[in-house]
């Protein structure tokens, strides 16, 4: 593997990483601030993708689709909060897990009933449909660069909101010591709703951004949800900064590991078994990394609670 290829792979890893970050950021906030395990975060990403794809098809424009999908995802999240999640905040983690699993079952089936089982597509907007030649014969799609840019911009915005605004201060305080925040007279319910709605919108945004490159289909959020949990656990629950670092780490490990593992294995065995073992190991790599990090730093890289 030459240097250019490695650089391209690195860029790919970063781009996948920021996509993961968009999903993981909402998850870690909701978990950290509200101490609420929301398994349904993955289906909110899926709903975002479906909303974006169908609204784009309806309006005939990617941008209108994106613009309309964001408030729709927000409203959808708030409706879920009102109907289901609100009644779970004071329950133990296991009840939250079971109830949000019920939401997953319902919504995965629901989109199939509404949109059909076949995957849907969302076209890449005209403006971003080109590519940048990075190496001979390979265009790096402009759209992927746009995802990277949007992800980084969102990260910067989140950093500003969390570190520099009053609401952000409360969020940080809530993540560190929620009972104390309540005791100081803050309406914790409103704060929860704010955080939750924002998290849902972020997941929806990730869904819309992913829709032009990934297949929009029932259950598309399930595997991403697991990766997002890996990210927030590695990063330290409740820490947006941790989620950012961990998301990039997971993205890079996933992408570069896949490229490198088979080559690495070839040092130890013959080519055909190296390919299969390498591929199997590459699938496990993220989990190996997580297990290793947790074994040495059980609270993650940037624990929010001291």
């Amino acid at each position, binding site marked *: 593997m030459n240097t250019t290829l490695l650089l391209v792979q690195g860029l790919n890893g970063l781009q996948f990483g920021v996509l993961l970050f968009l999903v993981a950021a909402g998850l870690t906030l909701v*978990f950290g601030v509200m101490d609420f*395990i929301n398994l349904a975060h993955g289906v909110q990403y899926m709903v975002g993708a479906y909303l974006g794809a169908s609204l784009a098809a309806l309006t005939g424009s990617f941008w209108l689709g994106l613009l309309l999908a964001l408030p729709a995802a927000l409203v959808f999240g708030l409706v879920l909060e009102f109907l*289901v999640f609100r*009644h*779970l905040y004071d*329950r133990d*983690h*296991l*009840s939250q*897990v*079971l*109830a949000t*699993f*019920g*939401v*997953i*079952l*319902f*919504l*995965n*089936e*629901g989109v*199939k*009933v509404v949109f059909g089982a076949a995957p849907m597509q969302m076209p890449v907007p005209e403006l971003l449909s080109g590519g940048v030649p990075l190496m001979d014969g390979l265009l790096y799609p402009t759209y992927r660069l746009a995802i990277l840019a949007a992800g980084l911009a969102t990260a910067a915005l989140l950093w500003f909101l969390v570190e520099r605004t009053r609401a952000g201060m409360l969020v940080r305080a809530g993540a560190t010591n929620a009972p104390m925040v309540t005791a100081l007279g803050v309406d914790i319910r409103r704060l929860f709703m704010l955080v939750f709605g924002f998290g849902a919108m972020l997941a929806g945004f990730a869904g819309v951004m992913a829709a032009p490159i990934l297949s929009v289909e029932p259950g598309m959020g*399930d595997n991403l949800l*697991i990766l997002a*949990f*890996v990210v927030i*656990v590695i990063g330290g*629950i409740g820490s947006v900064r941790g989620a950012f670092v961990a998301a990039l780490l997971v993205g890079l490990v996933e992408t570069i590991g896949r490229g490198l593992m088979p080559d690495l294995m070839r040092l130890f065995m013959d080519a055909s078994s190296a390919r*299969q*073992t390498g*591929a*199997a190991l590459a*699938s*496990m790599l993220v*989990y*190996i990394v*997580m*297990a290793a990090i*947790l*074994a040495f730093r*059980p*609270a*993650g890289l940037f624990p929010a609670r001291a």
Partner: protein
Amino acid sequence: MSNPRLWLPLLVFAGLAAAPFLGLGQGHSLTLLARGMIFGLAAVSLMLLVGGAGLVSLGHAAMMGMGAYAVVVLDHAGITEAWMVFPAGILAAALFALLTGAIAIRTSGVHFIMITLAFGQMAFFTTSSLAVYGGDDGYTLFSRTEVFGARWLENRLIFHFVCLGLLVACWALVQVLLESRFGRVLRAARENETRARALGFSPTPYRLLAYVIAGAMGGLAGVLLANSAEFVAPAYLAWQRSGDLLFMVILGGLAGPHGALVGALAFVLVEEWLSHAMEHWRLVFGPLLILCVFFLRGGIVGLLRRG
């Protein structure tokens, strides 16, 4: 009659024992009941971790998978004798639990969930890449495990009672463990680790032992599942399956192993009934789970205690 912890399981066991003679003796009903009992066994073993030690594992399907793949490996080598197969399945799972548990129990809470998930995923991808045993396609067992060379387990009625017997034994074991000093230490450490340590107990060896015992029972359930389906595939180790087991435990209620038992039976039977009755049954099953959480605090068995 006041303690559902005892009378409820006995009622369930009596019902299961009588079921074949009360019009549920057809092959498919027995298959379904066996499935319910096998998952019941796995859920009861998971209950020892979740309810007893407060260790929420999202990798318990891997334990079942170890048991199931032990059957496959031995079958491939031409060994189908129960006195080899059952201990091998149990030992394989216990060993896997010991190795992964030694690392996993250093963490707690959601980190424990994630690290057990990680080990489960590693086991899943490993079995998927075992081309000798069919890889992702799975492995067809051409006969069930034999007992002294006799093919008793092929008879579904006998298999029904083997499953029931093992389920009763495991339930009793978990029940006794939780009531014993061992169980009290686990619970004390769950409720207040600092105090337990101050009293001179290090919870670590207790937790590891609980993890290994639960793993071994999971392996036993895996051996039974392989025999029931006469087929083994990596899908048995998928994280969704671990999730299902966890949901059975929570659905039943964490008051004791009887909760896991009832939860597993309810989960398997309601799923079968709903999926037979309608196409989009998850539209009903999902909200049903949510309503259970809302209104049945303490799971299904919580309902009984109140009523």
